[in-house]
C-alpha cells in the first residue's frame, strides 16, 4: 500500500542520514604542537575558511570533539597526553594526522620524537606536506567526509572491526635489534 507523503517529507536510510549529519559537522580538536598548527589556524581563518565544510567549531575540550587533528611533531613526553585526549573523545570520532612530522616523524628522527602518531593511535587520514597548505588540509577534510559518507553507520559498528594496530609497528625489526645492542652497551658501560 503506497503511503501518501506530504511534499516536505523525505525518505532515507538511517545510516545515510547520520553520515550526512556527522560528516558536515565535524568538530575538530586541534592538537597543534608545532609549525603545522599555524597552517591549521590559517585554515580556520577567513581566507580559507574551514567553516565552508562545517568544521569550524574548534573545541579545546576533547569531550566535545569528534575529529582529532594532530598538527605537528609529538614528543615522548606528549604522547601519553595525545593518547589520553584520543581516549577522552566521545564516539564516533576520527583522526587526521597532518604534516610529515605527525605522519612519520619527518626530519626529526631523534631520541625524543615519536616517529609517526599512527604507531600508537589509530589514524583515519594522512595529510602529507611540510607544512601542508590549507588547501591540502581542506582536501583531506573533504576526503574524510567522503569516507564517512561511504563507510559510516548509524551505530558506528565499523569501528569495532578495527581491532588490529593500523600503523607501522612501534619498532621495526632493525630498531629492536639496535636498541637491544645499545642497551647491552649501556649496561656494560654502567658496570
Amino acid at each position, binding site marked *: 500500500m503506497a503511503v501518501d507523503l506530504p511534499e516536505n517529507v523525505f525518505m532515507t536510510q538511517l545510516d545515510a542520514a547520520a553520515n550526512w549529519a556527522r560528516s558536515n559537522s565535524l568538530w575538530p580538536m586541534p592538537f597543534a604542537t608545532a609549525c603545522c598548527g599555524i597552517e591549521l589556524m590559517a585554515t580556520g581563518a577567513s581566507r580559507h575558511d574551514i567553516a565552508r565544510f562545517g568544521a569550524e567549531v574548534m573545541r579545546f575540550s576533547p569531550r566535545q570533539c569528534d575529529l582529532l587533528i594532530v598538527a605537528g611533531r609529538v614528543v*615522548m*613526553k606528549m*604522547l*601519553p597526553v595525545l*593518547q589520553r585526549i*584520543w*581516549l577522552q573523545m566521545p564516539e564516533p570520532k576520527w583522526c587526521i594526522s597532518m604534516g610529515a612530522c605527525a605522519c612519520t616523524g619527518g626530519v626529526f*628522527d*631523534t*631520541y*625524543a*620524537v*615519536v*616517529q609517526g602518531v599512527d*604507531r*600508537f*593511535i*589509530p589514524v583515519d587520514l594522512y595529510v602529507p606536506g611540510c607544512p601542508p597548505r590549507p588547501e591540502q588540509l581542506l582536501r583531506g577534510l573533504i576526503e574524510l567526509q567522503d569516507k564517512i559518507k561511504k563507510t559510516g553507520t548509524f551505530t558506528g559498528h565499523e*569501528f*569495532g*572491526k*578495527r*581491532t*588490529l*594496530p*593500523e*600503523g607501522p609497528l*612501534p*619498532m621495526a625489526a632493525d*630498531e*629492536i635489534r*639496535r*636498541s*637491544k645492542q*645499545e*642497551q647491552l652497551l*649501556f649496561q656494560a*658501560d654502567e658496570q
Partner: protein
Amino acid sequence: MTIEEQLVQKFGANAFEFSQFRDNHRAVVAIDCLLSVLTFLKNDAGFDQLSDITAVDYLDFPDAVDRFGVVYILLNTQTGERLIVKTFVNDPHPEVPSVFSLWRGADWLEREVFDMFGISFKGHPDLRRILMPEEFTAFPLRKDYPLRGRGERHNFPVITRAES
C-alpha cells in the same frame, strides 16, 4: 683593573688559563677552586647575573684530556662585561658544586645540564630531570648516546580503534 688582573691578584696566576676573542673573556679554572672563584666574581667583581650554564662532552675530541667541560656565562649588569668561566670534570661520576646559593637562576640551568649530560651538582636543592620524562634513563647529549635513542620512544601502549 681588568677582571683578569683582579682574579690573578686574588687567586694567583697559576689558577687560571685566560684567553680572549674580541670582548669575549674566558677563564679556565680547576674544579677545586671553582666555587671560590665564582663567589668572588659574584660578590666582589660585580658579576651579578648568571646568563647560562652549559656543558660540552669532549669524548673522542682530538687532544682533549678531560671528558666534560662545564661552562658558566656571567654578566656584569653594571658595566656590561661578560666572562666565561669553564671547568672540567671526568667520568665516572662527574660532579661540580652547585652555584644555586649564589644565583637563584642556576636552579633550572643546573637541572638542564644534569638532564642532558648527567653531570650532578653538589648542593643543588632539587636535582631532577627538567626536559626529558622522569622515567628516562640515559643522558641524551652525551656523545656516546645514539642518535636515535635506545628505544625509549617506543615504550608506549598501542591503542587500536576498537578499544578506544
